[in-house]
């Protein structure tokens, strides 16, 4: 806040019961969020932004796609988060021979004590709160689709029955960008199902020191379960309650439209390198991610800054680039940076 604002006296809150309740919700949200972040940071070195990104996805009811080279802690990060959140966790290692039934489960014939046989649905590993889909691009598209359908519908259909998935249902898929042979890259339409795509970078020298110090001792760091299922669901509700003014919403829409080469609002770079721009799901992700970010910053309203903070994670996997971009090695992050620079805030 600038010098044009005089120092605050007392905060005007806490006089109105409803207002106090809202303030308490925010306070609780921030405290829980920070506790989880700190707890995960006891095991995971660096990657603060990615921890926040994963938590944002969880609280915005989305799913996250993690991309990074092998051995930088993608799986460890998800496992640690599951430990911290006290949620039911399952891990699925995706391989080319993995079948949809291996994920969602299958109907088996069961014989009771009386010798009567009946069909019974055997739940697969997807029936968990936190699902780690490791190397999701190694499975066949059919298997991928089974996972992605469950992600979208929050339910599983098998044997003529629909089985709702327990909330919170949060999928963290990992993808290795190096070994592309024998993989099945996710189609753009399915990538769109992921709320955020996070890129895990290589740790710094100091970070590597810290990793070695933490992982080569007799005892590795231990994390406590600090958040239970109910608290996570409450935080989700809190995040959704944050109001968004129309001008801010317009800003998110302007950013989305600026990625569409066929629209008048498209930037020069988008016109040149983008085949298809971000989907409406992208705009939803912008707003929901911005709401979580606003709460983390102790705000009751969403600001344009929140939109910008989440824009790269929310939109980078939703842009379909053309051949020119491939040829000139222009990635979606560069295009989004350009869009964020050129789209003006509402005045």
């Amino acid at each position, binding site marked *: 806040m600038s010098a044009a604002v005089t120092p605050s006296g007392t905060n005007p809150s806490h006089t109105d019961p409803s207002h106090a309740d809202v303030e308490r919700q925010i306070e609780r949200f921030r405290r829980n969020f920070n506790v989880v972040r700190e707890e995960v940071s006891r095991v995971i070195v660096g990657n603060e932004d990615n921890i926040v990104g994963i938590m944002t996805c969880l609280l915005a009811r989305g799913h996250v796609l993690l991309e990074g080279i092998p051995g930088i802690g993608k799986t460890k990060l998800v496992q640690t988060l599951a430990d911290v959140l006290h949620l039911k966790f399952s891990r699925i290692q995706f391989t080319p021979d993995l079948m949809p039934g291996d994920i969602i489960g299958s109907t088996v014939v069961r014989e009771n004590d009386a010798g009567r046989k009946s069909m019974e649905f055997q739940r697969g590993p997807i029936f968990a709160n936190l699902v780690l889909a490791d190397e999701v691009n190694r499975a066949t598209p059919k298997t991928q689709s089974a996972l992605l359908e469950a992600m979208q519908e929050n339910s599983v259909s098998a044997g003529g029955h629909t089985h709702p998935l327990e909330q919170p249902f949060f999928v963290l898929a990992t993808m290795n960008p190096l070994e592309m042979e024998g993989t099945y890259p996710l189609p753009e339409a399915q990538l769109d199902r992921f709320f955020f795509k996070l890129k895990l970078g290589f740790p710094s020298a100091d970070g590597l020191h810290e990793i070695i110090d933490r992982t080569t001792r007799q005892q590795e760091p231990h994390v406590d379960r600090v958040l239970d299922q109910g608290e996570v669901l409450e935080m989700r509700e809190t995040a959704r309650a944050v109001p968004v003014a129309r*001008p*801010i919403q317009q800003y998110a829409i302007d950013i989305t439209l600026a990625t569409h080469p066929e629209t008048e609002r498209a930037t020069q770079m988008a016109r040149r390198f983008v085949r298809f721009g971000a989907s409406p799901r992208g705009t939803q992700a912008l707003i929901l991610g911005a709401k979580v970010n606003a709460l983390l910053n102790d705000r*009751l309203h969403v*600001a344009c800054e929140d939109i910008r903070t989440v824009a790269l994670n929310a939109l980078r996997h939703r842009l379909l680039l053309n051949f020119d971009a491939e040829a000139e090695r222009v990635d979606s992050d560069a295009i989004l940076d350009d869009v964020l620079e050129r789209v003006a805030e509402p005045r």
Partner: protein
Amino acid sequence: MTPEREAIGRALTRIERRLLLNHAVYAASLIAGLAVLALLTWRALRWIGESAPVAVALVTVPAIVCATGLMFLLLRFLLTREAGPARAAGEADTRAALKNELASAYWFLHAGARSEWIAAQLRRAAHTASRLEAARLIPLRLPLTSGAALAVAVAALAVLWFAPPLAPASALAQSGLLSAEEVAQVQALRELAEAVPDSEAARRLEAALRTLEDAAAPADAQRRALAQANDAVQQMRLEAASTRERLQRLSEALRGQVGMDQVAEALARGEAKAAAQLLAQLQAQAAQTARAETSKTEPAESAGDRGLEQALQEATAATGATDDAGAAELARQAAVDRLKEIARELEAAAVVNEAWQRVRGPQLTAGQPQGLSASRFAEQTGAPSTPSPGSGETPMEGGTMFRAAAVAEGDGRTEQEGGTRAGDALGDAPADPLLGTQGERLEAQLRKQGITGGEQDGDEDQEQNKSWYYAQSQQQKALARLRKVQAAGRFAAAEGEAGEGISIQHRQIVKDYFMNLREGAR
């Protein structure tokens, strides 16, 4: 009205007023800038206008168009400028780094949205709004760029206001009828016309200059006027030379006379003023001597071209005779007056000569100079001026007259066939015309020498380098040749700078060029 709405509304109203005030200041600065611009344009038009109407027209139309455009933009800016609480909220958010808090709050209020969260947000926003200080948030000051632009415009106006008006010759240059050299010549002639005393030649020069400075005069008339002006200057120079010659003859006549040696020396040096002073001293001395004696002689004839010498002779004679003292005094007085007049003429002649030096530069390149012909010089000096038959140069008193301007065109190839190239010493033979564009420029010849020399060397090298195993590519050959030519040029330049100014390899070319400068030499 809820307290939150009231607090936010009050704060936004304050900010809105402040914004309007700021806009007013900005608009005032724009108007001031336009006014300065208009003044600047007006002054610039006046500054240029007297000498270049065409330029004025070229400036006037764009200036009017620009001014109209700026006025339109200003009006549009003032009329369409968004004002209101929404804009005030946006400005406050930006300036106080409130991260869209007030803009969101205003929208929630405006849209009538209701929820616990919105109420809480409004309460926070109201608290923030009540702490805003509009005066500190939106200070009344001009943007730095606007202030700087205004200051520059004012400075330019001040400079233009006190700038001297453009010389009419500039208008002549802008008219494009005369070349830059001719325009410079006209400027020098104008200065000359203002400096010389009134005479027939001066009046002719003035008339010619009036035509030259008339922007509406056609090109032919201007060129004719330029020639007339040059003629008039030539006439002035001739008159000045004639005056000097008279002084010389007077000096010779007075030399040997009793008491007149110093006067004669001063006249020989061309110092008429000094001679007049000396004569006045003699006059004073004679007046003292003759004070007691009676005067019987008649006054001398009025001073004229011929009367001056006669008056001095009489005055000289009177210095030895006391009975003729009155007449001698009068003669001396007339002589002193005439010498003063001659001194003024000589001063004017000095001005003419000085101006002529400036005029002559462009003329040498522009056309044929019409110098003092040998015959006229011989006529004025009364000295023999028989030229050398071989060189055409005439030895005469005080030096040698080089007769470059009086060389006659030979009709044949030899002297026996068509006579000598040197013209008649007493004739007014026209000068041999310069080759002009038919000749190859000296600079071009010098450069060509470097290149052709380089090519020959290159050919030799090629012959030497010819082998079964190696052959130069075209690029290598060209590069090697270019470097040789460049090296030759640099060598010649260095050699020229070190010694006499012309390198050894260029001397023959320079000599040939000047020897064959005229058509007759071809």
